[in-house]
């Protein structure tokens, strides 16, 4: 399977590391032989139609930016759209930084891939938060797959769990902690009795929070995940502006102490049911399975037959997210294999 990687940040590097490993192992049981044929970054690209070897991928990582300076396969100045259009591949892996104002350039990368008949795996929440119904329709229309399990739960397969393991059951509601940074801050505040600002500073020091932390603490990140779950699992056609969102800036030690007296604590919960989806700090019992501490994520699916099912795991992290990309690639591979073997008339090139 030939792959174009768009974006070479932390996740992009994680993807090359994991795929280089799999390429070396050839993962015989899955028959999965991933080849990265191009990596496009902001300043240009490295392109080798035969696939960049694991040694080459390592060399690129060691050498650092700009990656297009590679003496063998570097193409300085070429932009990602041109790469997506001109390099032959089955899949585009889109891992550029999130932008929730316009979702660019990711949304252009994804639509260009669709139009040139390439499947897309993305870990980028921006395009999905702003245009998920449009993108899923466009993928279907172009007869390609769009996969994004890295966007929710990171390494924890929340989307697949709901879609596959709960197939046939009716999911009535989804509630969860979808953001590790805010969960770390709230855990710090309640367990160590520190104020919001101190807890935030500590999260920043540990690299959990960005210097500009609004995306996390104002609930945007959680809201993006609520949009994705609503569309993918619940079949609602919503975007970011349809989510009622409150962040954790106004949570004080006092509120937490009072909740503790009742045996409860406060968590930033994303919630989807028959009402308008919400993201807001919510008091929950310390004994509830959702009540996880530190940077962990958790989700509870309330279903008609199976009752409540809770999944706990690590959210963000470059290797965890890259692992989710690998899962998506395997899923696409299986779907393509079935499609190629079971259709009589369709031609795919």
């Amino acid at each position, binding site marked *: *399977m*030939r792959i174009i990687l768009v974006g070479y940040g932390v996740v992009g590097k994680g993807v090359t590391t994991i795929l280089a490993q799999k390429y070396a192992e050839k993962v*015989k*049981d*899955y*028959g*999965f*032989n991933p*080849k990265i*044929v191009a990596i496009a970054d902001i300043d240009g690209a490295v392109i080798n*139609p*035969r*696939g960049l070897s694991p040694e080459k991928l390592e060399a690129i990582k060691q050498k650092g930016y700009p990656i297009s300076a590679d003496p063998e396969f570097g193409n300085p100045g070429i932009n990602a759209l041109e790469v997506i259009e001109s390099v*032959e591949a*089955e899949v585009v892996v889109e891992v550029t930084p999130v932008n929730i104002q316009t979702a660019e350039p990711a949304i252009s990368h994804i639509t260009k891939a669709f139009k040139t008949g390439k499947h897309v795996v993305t870990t980028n929440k921006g395009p999905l938060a702003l245009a998920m119904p449009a993108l899923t329709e466009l993928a279907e229309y172009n007869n390609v797959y769009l996969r994004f399990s890295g966007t929710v739960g990171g390494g924890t397969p929340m989307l697949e769990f709901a879609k596959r393991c709960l197939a046939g059951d009716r999911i009535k509601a989804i509630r969860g902690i979808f953001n590790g940074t805010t969960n770390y801050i709230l855990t710090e505040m309640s367990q160590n009795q520190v104020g919001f600002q101190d807890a935030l500073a500590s999260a920043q020091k540990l690299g959990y929070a960005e210097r500009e932390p609004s995306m996390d603490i104002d609930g945007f990140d959680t809201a993006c995940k609520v949009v994705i779950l609503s569309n993918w699992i619940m079949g609602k056609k919503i975007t970011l502006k349809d989510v009622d969102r409150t962040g954790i800036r106004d949570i004080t030690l006092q509120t937490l102490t009072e909740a503790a007296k009742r045996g409860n604590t406060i968590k930033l919960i994303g919630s989807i049911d028959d009402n308008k989806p919400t993201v807001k700090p919510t008091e929950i019992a310390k004994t509830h399975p959702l009540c996880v501490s530190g940077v962990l994520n958790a989700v509870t699916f309330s279903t008609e037959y199976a009752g409540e099912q809770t999944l706990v795991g690590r959210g963000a992290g470059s290797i965890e997210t890259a692992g989710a990309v690998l899962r998506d690639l395997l899923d696409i*591979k*299986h779907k*393509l*294999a079935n499609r*190629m*073997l079971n*259709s009589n008339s*369709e*031609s*795919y*090139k």
Partner: protein
Amino acid sequence: MKLVMKFGGTSVGSGVNIRHVAGLVTKYAKENNKIAVVVSALAGVTNSLIETSFRAQKSDEKYIQTFTKTLLAKHTDAIKEAITSEIIQKEVIEITEKNIAELEKILIGICYIGELTPKSKDYVMSFGERLSAPIVWGAIKDHSTQTQWFTGKDAGIVTDSNFGDADPLMNYTTHLVRERLEPLLERNIIPVVTGFIAANQDGIVTTVGRGGSDYTSTILGVALQADEVWIWTDVDGIMTTDPKIVPTAKMLSQLSYKEATEMAIFGAKAMHPRALGPVSKANVPVRIRNTNNPENSGTLITKEPQADAKEVTKAVAMLKDVAMLNVYGAAMVGAPGSYAKVFDVLGKNGINVMMISAAASEANISMIIKRDLLGRAISNLEIALQEHGGIISEVTAEDDVAVIATIGANMKGALGVASKIFSAVAKKGINIRMIAQGSSELNISFVVKEKDGTAVVQTIHEEFNLGKQ
């Protein structure tokens, strides 16, 4: 004799060449032959038309104007070189200007709509021949010979509506062509017909695609019941091998349609096999001749191989830019339909398999495909067929290979040909990667590393004494 003569792009590459071609046609006409002429576009023109139509699709209006100006200049130059009479010059220039004005309108139309359909692309491409045929016509007229020019459509060639790759409705075409061109031949008027282009039954311009003007000439040859179709080109005929590889390569005086078809695949400067279709059915001989060396009688392609020929092997050729694909899988052994799955996946992804070899063990298949499709082939085979429980366990490839083919109808039933070939190659210390021989025994093909290709061709050429008369 009744002859259809086709002149390719280099034969009509310049005004001087066209003048030469007109001289040749006149000469043969004076020798009491009845001649119909088929012409290609001037060298390079068809490609530039395709390029421009793509630019037009991207709404590059400026480029169109520059292009049509250059195109007019190119053809005007050719007209002035090819034709001496100023009256005829003027007449041809008028036709050319009118045609180019029409072309410009169409290109601008494409520009505005931003869409290039196969139908409009055929129409644009048709201008290459529509511009060259009047010049050849003018040059023949300039030799005081009676002549008349036709588009393929006006000559009566009717095809299906498969734009870009149309096939003739042969019986209908024969009916119309006889009605329109035969009376001219009887009056010794030379029809000059545009190659490559025709029309469907509604009169919409089509092109015959692969085989091009050669195809037009064989269609006309059959329709007019010609004695021979002459393909004029810039080589003496079909050679025993590429003279660039073996300087002692000699011209073959006669070949069968089947042999020529085998050779054409290897680009032996012969014809596209598709063009041989109509003539081989109707048994009209084809002769490949050199415009620069008309004394040479060229290579004659007929139904039967030369009756008295003793050579077992007639020619050896090399096919480059290919890759070898090896598919392994113990699960393929004894499993009906497993090969079909492999070829099905390749077919669905638009990959043509050129050569196949499979061991009786059934555990592996080797294939030759075009080198630039290798990545797509490997990737899709792995995706579709390689997984737990899938039929293939591994796909490997070698992209530095070449196919060598030895060709000759008399190899059929001859003993020891293969052993002679392979021991000669082995003596050079060259390893053979893959072998295939169809049961027709016309062709033994095998694969070696591309770097050894030249040496192998030379060795076989020598081993079978192909250079000796």
